[in-house]
């Protein structure tokens, strides 16, 4: 039997983003996988350098369209840490509300894609219709549907008006019932079960070896949630469960995310109830001369990490580690031995976001290479 190399991608192998998988096949079975990334490298870290923190926040939030508040939030957490700045209770709660709304929107988007991937387009449309309500909320609260840009360092651009509180609760109420129905459908539908059950299994040991984070790790039995282990905003004062499931196949990953949506709804309801009547502080420009700090938040896909170094009021070095960057390598392991038809489902089931993970990483096993920063920039044009 001879080997056959089949390229999947770079145009949209699973989600609508570019990545090339070179699959070595024997019959229908995948023998080995070679990944090629780098089609959407934007050099954002380079863009951040030389800007002051107020400007850079907006550029950082554009790293990802789906989790733009997460990026903003991680950036702000880093800067506020650097300045040792405390924000008031209302700001914290509103940030939590928006953050969780974003998680809902991201999980529904992904669940829709997952259904689309296995050919269940009816459910895909329904899930996206529910997501539309959340996007409308964003437009009403933040001004934009995608790049919300509502956070400011130490404050917020807009407050939530009482009418909008009502809108948020109404939207959640109308969604809740339907999402329960859809979740049941996923659990019971025979086609979905056939396509997802037992596919792309990740054991706890593999998950730890490959450094899985976020919902994927939680579906494999690892209790990993930055909201709990390193609380920020109001998460320390709020009751919520971190959902952990043991099985770690594509089905569990789907159901886990659907359950997380319900958990997020609970968090938002608590936050709205707790909103105090104080005012949010007025926006003022950040005055920061020097400092170095790290910050992390639990983005919808897992831990999002920022490192910033500020010199003379300008950012000298920025490092961003997005969730996908941490777990994409596991594809090489779990795609081995599966049928070719399952490949898109497995890739999609990890919820990767390629355009925000494209970072330059140079790792050479065979020889060491020493370069100055200028040489490095020239060579890798960043």
């Amino acid at each position, binding site marked *: 039997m001879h080997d056959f190399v089949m390229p999947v991608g770079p145009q949209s192998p699973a989600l609508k983003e570019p990545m090339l998988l070179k699959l070595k096949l024997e019959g229908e079975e995948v023998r080995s996988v070679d990944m090629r990334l780098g089609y959407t490298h934007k050099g954002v870290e380079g863009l951040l350098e030389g800007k002051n923190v107020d*400007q850079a926040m907006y550029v950082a939030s554009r790293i990802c369209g789906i989790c733009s508040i997460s990026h903003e939030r991680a950036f702000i957490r880093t800067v506020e840490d650097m300045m040792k700045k405390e924000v008031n209770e209302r700001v914290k709660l509103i940030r939590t509300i928006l953050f969780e709304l974003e998680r809902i929107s991201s999980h529904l988007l992904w669940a829709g894609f997952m259904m689309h991937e296995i050919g269940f387009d009816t459910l895909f449309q329904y899930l996206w219709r529910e997501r539309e309500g959340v996007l409308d909320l964003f437009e009403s609260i933040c001004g934009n549907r995608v790049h919300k840009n509502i956070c400011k360092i130490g404050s917020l651009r807009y407050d939530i008006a009482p009418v909008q509180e009502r809108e948020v609760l109404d939207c959640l109420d109308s969604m809740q019932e*339907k999402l329960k129905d*859809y979740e049941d459908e996923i659990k019971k539908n025979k086609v979905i079960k056939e396509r997802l059950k037992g596919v792309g299994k990740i054991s706890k040991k593999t998950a730890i070896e490959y450094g899985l984070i976020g919902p994927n790790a939680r579906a494999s039995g690892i209790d990993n949630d930055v909201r709990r282990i390193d609380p920020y905003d109001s998460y320390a004062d709020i009751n919520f469960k971190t959902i952990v499931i043991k099985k770690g196949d594509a089905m569990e990953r789907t159901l886990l995310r659907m359950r997380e949506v319900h958990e997020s709804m609970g968090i938002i309801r608590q936050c709205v109830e707790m909103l105090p009547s104080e005012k949010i502080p007025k926006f003022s420009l950040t005055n920061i001369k020097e400092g170095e700090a790290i910050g992390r938040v639990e983005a919808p896909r897992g831990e999002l990490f920022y490192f910033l170094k500020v010199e003379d009021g300008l950012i000298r070095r920025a490092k961003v580690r997005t969730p996908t960057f941490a777990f994409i390598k596991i594809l090489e392991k779990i795609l081995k031995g599966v049928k070719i038809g399952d490949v898109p489902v497995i890739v999609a089931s990890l919820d990767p976001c390629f355009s925000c993970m494209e970072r330059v990483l140079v790792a050479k096993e065979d020889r060491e290479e020493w370069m100055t920063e200028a040489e490095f920039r020239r060579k890798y044009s960043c």
Partner: protein
Amino acid sequence: MGVLKEIIINFFKEPFTELHPFVKKKPKERFRGRILYEADRCIGCRLCEKYCPVKAVDFHEKGRIDFDMGKCIYCGLCRDVCPVKCIHYTHAFEYASSNKEKLRKNLV
């Protein structure tokens, strides 16, 4: 059963999609659309130019500034830093053009 119920309900519903170009969609109040610049109130402090993260603000002289909407990322920083608040957002969002000059010309 859930999905089947949805399908039946949806047979008797109005379409969910909007007939946008025929029935104009009104953006929400906080929507950030094309920038409106009040030239006569500007004091020429150049803060907007300094703070724009993508260098979309072209400062020629006091009272004559071009906001390049082809570059603008609608972050709102220029509006926030302006000391006399003479930069505003309108609700205009249909101004896509293949002519870059048109995007640079200001709404005044």
